[in-house]
C-alpha cells in the first residue's frame, strides 16, 4: 500500500510511504519555516512524485494532518489533499497532526509511558494532547487535542516545538524541543493503523478556536 501524506499544521511537509519499502519511506520533504506553504507544497509533491517515478494512479490513499495548527497554513494542506484525492479518485483520510510527533517519540529512546505533545498555537498559547505508550505498541491518544496556556498543562514529559518554546513552564525534552509534526510520521502512523484495522479521521480541520469575529453590539445612541 502506497500512501501520500501531507501535513501543514506547522511546517509544510509531504511523504510517500509504503509497507513495501525499507522503513516504509519512499520519499519525503519538509520545510523549515511555517509561512511559505502555498509556495512550496505543490512543487514539493510534484518533485517527489517525479523523482520516485510515480503518478497519481500509483497511490492507494492520501492522508492529511487535520491539525490543530494555525488556520491558513493548515487549510493549505487540506485544500491540496482534498483536490488531489478528488482528481485521482483516491480515498482521503485525516489524522490528528500531533500524532506525528507522538509516533516519533514512541520510536525514540526518550519515550515515557505517559507524555504530552505540544506545538505552538501562537498568541502565547499551545496546542497539546496527552498520550500513553505501552511497549511495542502505537501511542494511544488519551486526551486532546486542546488549545491553552502552557502553565495549565498536566505535569508530564513534554515533546514538540511548543514544549521547547515554553521550557520554563513544561518538562520539555531537549531532543524534541524544536520538533514539528511531519508528514513522514503521519504517513507511517496511518499505515500502521490501517494495517491493524483501526480507523482514521476524515479531513475536517480541527480548528479548536472559533473565528475571531465578534457580533457587533447595538449601536450606542447619542444622549
Amino acid at each position: 500500500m502506497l500512501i501520500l501524506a501531507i501535513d501543514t499544521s506547522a511546517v509544510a511537509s509531504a511523504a510517500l510511504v509504503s509497507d513495501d519499502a525499507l522503513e516504509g519511506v519512499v520519499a519525503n520533504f519538509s520545510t523549515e519555516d511555517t509561512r511559505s506553504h502555498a509556495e512550496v507544497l505543490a512543487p514539493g509533491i510534484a518533485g517527489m512524485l517525479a523523482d520516485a517515478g510515480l503518478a497519481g494512479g500509483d497511490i492507494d490513499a492520501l492522508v492529511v494532518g487535520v491539525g490543530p495548527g494555525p488556520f491558513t497554513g493548515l487549510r493549505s494542506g487540506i485544500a491540496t489533499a482534498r483536490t488531489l484525492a478528488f482528481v485521482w479518485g483516491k480515498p482521503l483520510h485525516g489524522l490528528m497532526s500531533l500524532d506525528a510527533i507522538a509516533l516519533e517519540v514512541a520510536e525514540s529512546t526518550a519515550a515515557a509511558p505517559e507524555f504530552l505533545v505540544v506545538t505552538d498555537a501562537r498568541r502565547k498559547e499551545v496546542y497539546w494532547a496527552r498520550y500513553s505508550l505501552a511497549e511495542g505498541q502505537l501511542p494511544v491518544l488519551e486526551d486532546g487535542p486542546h488549545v491553552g496556556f502552557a502553565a495549565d498543562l498536566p505535569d508530564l514529559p513534554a515533546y514538540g516545538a511548543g514544549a521547547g518554546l515554553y521550557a520554563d513552564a513544561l518538562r520539555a525534552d531537549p531532543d524534541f524541543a524544536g520538533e514539528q509534526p511531519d508528514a513522514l510520521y503521519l504517513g507511517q502512523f496511518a499505515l500502521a493503523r490501517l494495517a491493524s484495522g483501526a480507523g482514521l479521521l476524515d479531513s475536517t480541520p480541527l480548528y479548536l478556536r472559533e473565528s475571531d469575529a465578534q457580533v457587533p453590539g447595538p449601536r450606542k445612541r447619542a444622549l
Partner: protein
Amino acid sequence: MNRTQPLVLGIESSCDETGVGVVRGTTLLANTVSSSMDEHVRFGGVIPEIASRAHLDAFVPTLEQALAEAGATLDDVDAIAVTSGPGLAGALMVGVCAAKALAVATGKPLYAINHLVAHVGVGLLDDRATGKQQALPESLGALLVSGGHTEILRINSITSDVELLGSTIDDAAGEAYDKVARILGLGYPGGPAIDRVARTGNPKAIRFPRGLSQPKYMGTSDEPGKHRYDWSFSGLKTAVARCVEQFEARGEDIPVADIAAAFQEAVVDVISSKAVLACREHGIKDVLLGGGVAANSRLRELTGQRCASAGIRLHVPPLDLCTDNGAMVAALGAQLVMAGAEPSGIGFAPDSSMPVTSVSLQA
C-alpha cells in the same frame, strides 16, 4: 495546448464567493458560485476567517458542479486559471492551493491571474442572448465597484497592459454601504438594503461630503492633484453617523430613507463624476462597469447619464458576471492562452495586494 479555442477552468476565492467557471475561447460554458454571504450577515460584514473556512469546504463540490454543467472532464481542460490577488490573504490561499493541486494532479498549465483585470475579462465573453462574439474597444476603461474594491482602470491590452488611474484610499464603496446600513439598522448586505430604502427618500434632504473632491486633491487637468481620480469613503461614513446622532440628541425620529438616499447620492455622485473625468482626460470612449455594486440602480443610472453626456459608452455585463465568479477568471485565462502568454508555474504565492500592472504572474 490548444491556443485557438482553449478550454479553461477558472477558480476564484478572493473574498466570500467560491467560484469555478469554464470557458471555451470566449464562450461561457459554466459559472458555478457558492457564497458564504449568509454566514457573514450577523457580523455585518465579511469575516475573512469565516470566508476561508467556507472556501475550503465549498471548493471540490463547486468544481464538480461546474464540470458537470460544462459537460467537460478535467482531461478536456487545456489550462487552469486562478485568482492570485488582490483579495483576502487567507481566502486567496485556499483557491491557490486547490488550483496548484489541480495542476499537479492533471499536469495542466496554471495561470495566476489578477482579480481586478478578470472583472474586465467578462466583457470579452460572447453575448449570451445572441451568441455573438464581442471585441474590447480600443480605448477601454473599467469602473470596478464592490465590497472589496473601487477602481478605475485603463485597459490598453487586457493580456499585457493595464493601468490603475484611480482607486479608493480607504474603504471600498460596498464596505461603506455595509457600514452605513448598520448605522441605519438596515441589515447586511448594505448595498441592496440602502438602494431599496433610498427610493422612498429625498436625496437632497441632507448634503453629505464627497471625499477628495476639494481643489487641493483635484488639481487641474494640466497639473492633476495627488488624488484627482481617487475616492475616500471613510469620512462619509463618519458624517452619516454624526447626522444620525444629531437627530437622536434632539429626540427626533431618524429620517432613515432620506439619509439612505442622501448617502447613496453622495457615493454615486463622486464615483461617477471622477470616473467620467478620468475617462475624458485619458481619451477613453468605452467604460465597462464591474463588481457587485454594479447592481445598484442609482449607480447605473447616474453613471449612464454622465457617460452619455460625455460621449462615453457604458457597458454593463449581466449581473451574475459582475459579482465575483470563476467565469471571469476563466475568461481572462483564455485570453492569456490565446495571446500566447506563458503559464505561471506552481511556485508562486498569492498576493493580497497584487497590482493591476501584473495581469498574470510570470513563472
